[in-house]
């Protein structure tokens, strides 16, 4: 059974770079890797998505090795407002309404002053 594993929690300090790694050993050829951020009492919010190698946007980078069995979300110079839960999602929805969405249990990131 496909599984997505990530650390339960992480601590950091303002201004540091934070790297959160997700393991997905059974990732399939057509699967994408997506990361979401969730604040208390809100729905998750899309951060970044990738298929392989490296993707960068204005808020984060996503590193995916060649075997794609893991991925690392990198948050540069975190601030207190980055304190949230970060979810790794592997999969997608394919032809014939075939759905595969494997969510990790989330990593609770605490950024300290």
């Amino acid at each position, binding site marked *: 059974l496909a599984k997505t594993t990530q650390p339960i929690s992480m601590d950091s300090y303002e201004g540091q770079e934070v790297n959160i790694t997700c393991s997905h050993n059974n990732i399939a050829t057509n699967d994408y890797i*997506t990361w*979401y951020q969730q604040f208390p009492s809100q729905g*998750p919010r899309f951060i970044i998505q990738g298929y392989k190698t490296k993707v960068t946007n204005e808020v984060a980078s996503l590193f995916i090795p060649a075997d794609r069995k893991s991925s690392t979300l990198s948050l540069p110079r975190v601030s207190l407002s980055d304190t949230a839960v970060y979810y790794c999602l592997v999969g997608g*929805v394919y032809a014939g*309404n075939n759905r595969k969405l494997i*969510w990790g249990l989330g990593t609770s990131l605490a950024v300290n002053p």
Partner: protein
Amino acid sequence: GAGVSQSPSNKVTEKGKDVELRCDPISGHTALYWYRQSLGQGLEFLIYFQGNSAPDKSGLPSDRFSAERTGGSVSTLTIQRTQQEDSAVYLCASSLGSGSSEQFFGPGTRLTVL
């Protein structure tokens, strides 16, 4: 533009009663998802609608749970004969298409079954 909206934001009910939760997706989004999130837990997939295709109901935990999507827009999740273990936040998300499209989440409905 407006995001995904859900109503009610909070619902308290008694064990055994039926509840209906509503989701208004972003206009033009063909895909709609329902998830359940228990306190401190990750997201549990419930059901997925894509256009006019038959929904993927593989995540519904029991036959007390059902959902419909009328006119390819608004969706209603119905829980019959609620149980205390149904207490959770129910999240709805929509996306432009299928595949790996970004999901836009609503704020959720917090359901408490007494």
